[in-house]
């Protein structure tokens, strides 16, 4: 079953990458659609980031004593300053480990 779902997801992904290469595709996307698609990464990724930082595996909100929250804020700063994926991951993981070790 998982293989079937995986293959369908793969075909869906491929077709979204291919769609405008098709002979039947319009030359250009309509403006409103282009604007909406431009917002997909920010919306989708934020929807994954926020729960990964402040929601427990059981689905509850965790703010107090949560080392991931300050670590994520450090990472946001690092991302804005350095624009480097590696520096962002390193600063976020590093500050989480430091906080876990000394504070919590």
């Amino acid at each position, binding site marked *: *079953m*998982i*293989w*079937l*779902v*995986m*293959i*369908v*997801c*793969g075909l*869906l*992904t*491929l077709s*979204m*990458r*291919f*769609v*405008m*290469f098709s*002979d039947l*595709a319009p030359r*250009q*996307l309509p403006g409103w659609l*282009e*604007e*909406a*698609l431009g*917002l*997909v*990464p*920010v*919306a*989708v*990724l*934020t*929807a*994954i*980031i*926020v*729960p*990964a*930082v*402040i*929601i427990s595996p059981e*689905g509850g*909100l965790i703010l107090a004593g949560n080392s991931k929250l300050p670590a*994520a804020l450090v*990472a*946001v700063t690092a*991302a*804005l300053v350095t*624009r*480097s*994926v*590696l520096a*962002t*991951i390193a600063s*976020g*993981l590093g500050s*989480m480990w430091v906080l876990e070790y000394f504070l919590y």
Partner: protein
Amino acid sequence: MNTSATSRHDEFWAGVRAELPLQLGVAPFGLVFGVLGLASGLSAWETILMSSIVFGGASQVVFAQLWGGGVPAPVVGASVSVINLRHVLYSASVAPYLRSLPLRWRVPLAYLLTDEAYAVTINRLRDEPPSPNQHYHLLGTGMTLWICWQVTTVMGVVFGATIPESWSLGFAIPLTFIALVAPAIRRRADLAACLTAGTIAVVGQPLPWKGWIILAAVGGILAGWLVHRHDRRRTAS
């Protein structure tokens, strides 16, 4: 049109060279996906082959987490689709340069059209003189990323079991996304999309089947789009 006949070889290797530095971001993500796939309850083969069947980092992470959480298949498919919708934009942007190629080229190049390959190749297509062999550039960037993604996924699967749980390496996934999202918030519309999606993702937690992923994504896109329309009308008037 001013065409300069660059060779296939030069285009391909220019793509490979330009793509290599970005692997600093791709490699840790691949490793973490390998680790996370197993942690979510997928088998080693399921995790490894997903990297070539789906071949889209964020959507693979969500697939593994949803599948591991017992979410029904249609919701998994819909979530993966929403996440990968952005590729339609890349497809539209690259299409004018590739549309004349035969299908046996267009299909594999579409398969290789990931965020990082697009980001590099579009610069070459836009800024440098057209060449009949320019599609080899995308082949170069795409294959570089593909190989890096497959190799690091396998490494993550192989070494994943030896990494202590207390390292919380899974946290590298939201951190990777922070690296992509934070610099991308430039306009009020982006901020609206971000805040709306984040809020829905939190308050939507009680929804069944992790439905908050789709709802937050669609809500964020809609909010950002409305703000964009509003702002543009104001600047126009």
